[in-house]
């Protein structure tokens, strides 16, 4: 229900972007957030297969996230569940959806990260509350965005 959407253009063909996201070798090259090392990277890119990534930040803290590939269509679509190990940072399971669209310069990537919700409930109510929620949000955090259903 609460979700974040990002669009990014990448000068590489979709198949290359897809493999960078879904293979252990690809993931270890780009996952580290701040130049700290990726300590572990596993990915089994098929429906029901799992991924696991562990990295150390330059401040010494280690973080691990893992999940399951829910949909996988090379080279256009990846849907995966997402959970941080330990649950201290984000206790619940969320869902990451990535679509890759070919464009002349390479790939347009759209990423949506959503908190898991009962999607049917979400859809039926989406129209009603989104605007008001955003208004309330403005009260607490200027600049944050939320959207309705993923």
């Amino acid at each position: 229900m609460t979700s974040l959407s990002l669009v990014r253009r990448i000068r590489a063909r979709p198949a290359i972007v897809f493999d960078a996201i879904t293979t252990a070798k690809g993931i270890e090259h780009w996952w580290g957030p701040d130049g700290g090392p990726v300590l572990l990277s596993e990915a089994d890119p098929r429906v029901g297969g799992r991924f696991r990534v562990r990295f150390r930040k330059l401040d010494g803290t280690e973080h691990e996230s893992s999940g399951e590939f829910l949909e996988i269509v090379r080279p256009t679509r990846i849907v995966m569940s997402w959970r941080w190990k330990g649950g201290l940072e984000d206790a619940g399971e969320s869902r990451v959806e990535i679509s890759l669209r070919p464009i002349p310069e390479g790939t347009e990537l759209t990423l949506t990260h959503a908190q898991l919700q009962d999607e049917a409930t979400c859809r039926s109510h989406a129209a009603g509350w989104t605007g008001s929620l955003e208004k309330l949000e403005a009260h607490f955090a200027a600049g944050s965005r939320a959207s309705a259903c993923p």
Partner: protein
Amino acid sequence: MVNYQKRLDRTFAALVDPTRRAILAELERKDSASISDLAEPFAIKLPAVMKHLDVLEDAGLVTRSKSGRTVTVRLRPQPMREAMAWLRRYERFWPRRLDGLAAYAESQEAEARSKER
């Protein structure tokens, strides 16, 4: 922590109803309000307002305190803050990840092209 998702579900469920959102908006403007103050702008009776307040209170979005015969209602922003904290975390997280992904994929693309030549 175990109930984090449940709490968020309750927060969002409470926000689905337009009257409840209007009540929250009203409390956002004022510091606190009595139940009759809150009922005034709506064409509904006090018991209906009480029911909405029950839902909002269960979701932790408002608190009620009684002083004599007056019940004072206040906005409690914590549940909204949790939803916002979640959002902000990933607003920081993903753009940097995608920078790294783009740099890596673009280097792979260059490599693939030099092999194809």
